[in-house]
């Protein structure tokens, strides 16, 4: 299955990419997506994750075509 991964703000800067397009087979969670895309970097503790623009827990299961996003705590307003 195909998963689009997006990164924002300081997390985007620290890994040097704004997005990835990855292929997976079998049961895959959000944190599996991070580990596959960034095998040499642990996800920072305070990071947030979204699937299809809704907040999710890191153990949420992803499905084909999902857009998974990782980003630091939000600071708008």
């Amino acid at each position, binding site marked *: 299955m195909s998963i689009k991964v997006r990164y924002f*703000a*300081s997390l985007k800067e620290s890994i040097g990419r704004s997005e990835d397009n990855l292929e997976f087979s079998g049961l895959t969670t959000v944190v599996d997506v991070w580990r596959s895309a960034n095998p040499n970097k642990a996800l920072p503790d*305070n990071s947030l994750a979204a699937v299809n623009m809704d*907040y999710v827990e890191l153990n949420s299961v992803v499905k084909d075509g999902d857009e998974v996003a990782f980003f*630091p*705590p*939000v*600071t*708008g*307003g």
Partner: protein
Amino acid sequence: MEIKIYDEPFDPWKEVQGHQCSAQGMAGKFGATNIFIGTMRDFNEGEDIKGMTLEHYPGMTEKQLERIVAEAVRQWPIIDALVVHRVGDILPNDPIVLVAVWTSHRGDAFDASRFIMEALKTRAPFWKKELLKSQAERWLVKNTDGYI
């Protein structure tokens, strides 16, 4: 209910006036309008700030803000609401955010706009990067709790 994201400066007073004038059937129905405007300071955490870049997640921003306003509508008898937020390069004294709520009575207007603003601060995917007078840049790490 209206949500707007601007990548250039906006005038919050004109936004409120324009929205109120164009809202169909609202005249005579509302008795309270509560307006919150967040403006960029030229100082933060002991540093002089020259400017700021506001990044966001297009699509998720609107989705989360629409959800927040819908939650407010379920909790309070809101006649109308307007949320406007800047993105891009921002200078001190530029308005960053506007939340306006129209209700029949003042308590609901105060409470609903406070709810929308605090929820925006914790859930809407915006990120601020400050440019200091020293030319150094820094990302804000997290928003403070507005109720403390």
